[in-house]
């Protein structure tokens, strides 16, 4: 709260955006490293894989904290826009995620459903909802 009282919206936005970008990039890179490293870099060495998982979890935690600070620093309309986007994103992911998981047992999909597709859906629905809602208040 003291931080918010002593800084302007623009200053908070700039600082939290930078922090969020850095930790999200770190999380993504460590995730990519864990996705491709075992096969292409360290030949499935368990110790190295566990270390990369630990790094990924730490970066993930810092990304979550940075995202929370980013939301705390927004003004009330911006927070409402993000809350709406989260609600849409959560709902869309739940509805389509549940159906998607049942496609293979129902023999409507040949490949095993991948959780990364749900993450992609969450991101896209969040972004679209944020853009559409923002335009309502322009």
């Amino acid at each position, binding site marked *: 709260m003291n931080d918010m009282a002593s800084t302007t919206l623009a200053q908070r936005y700039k600082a939290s955006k930078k922090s969020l970008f850095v930790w999200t990039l770190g999380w993504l890179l460590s995730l990519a490293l864990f996705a491709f490293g075992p096969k292409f870099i360290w030949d499935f060495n368990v110790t190295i894989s566990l270390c990369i998982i630990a790094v990924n979890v730490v970066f993930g935690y810092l990304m979550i904290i940075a995202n929370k600070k980013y939301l705390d620093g927004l003004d009330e309309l911006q927070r409402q826009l993000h809350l709406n986007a989260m609600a849409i994103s959560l709902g869309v992911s739940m509805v389509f995620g549940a159906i998607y998981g049942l496609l293979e047992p129902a023999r409507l999909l040949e490949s095993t459903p991948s959780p990364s597709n749900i993450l992609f859906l969450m991101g896209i629905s969040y972004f679209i909802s944020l853009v559409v809602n923002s335009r309502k*208040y322009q």
Partner: protein
Amino acid sequence: MKNRLKVLRAERNWTQSDLAKALDVSRQTINAIETGKFDPSLPLAFRAAKVFGLTIEQIFDDSEH
């Protein structure tokens, strides 16, 4: 909720950005309040009253509800 934000701002020759800076919100938020698309919280209404040197009732009117 009706409000006199736009009129009060015009009387002082302030832009939406000037008022946004004074209230520590985005210009989009000022625009949304002025056009009646968004109702401010009580703390923001108090800040607006303080900035204009008026009471909340002199700026915001909820007689429609």
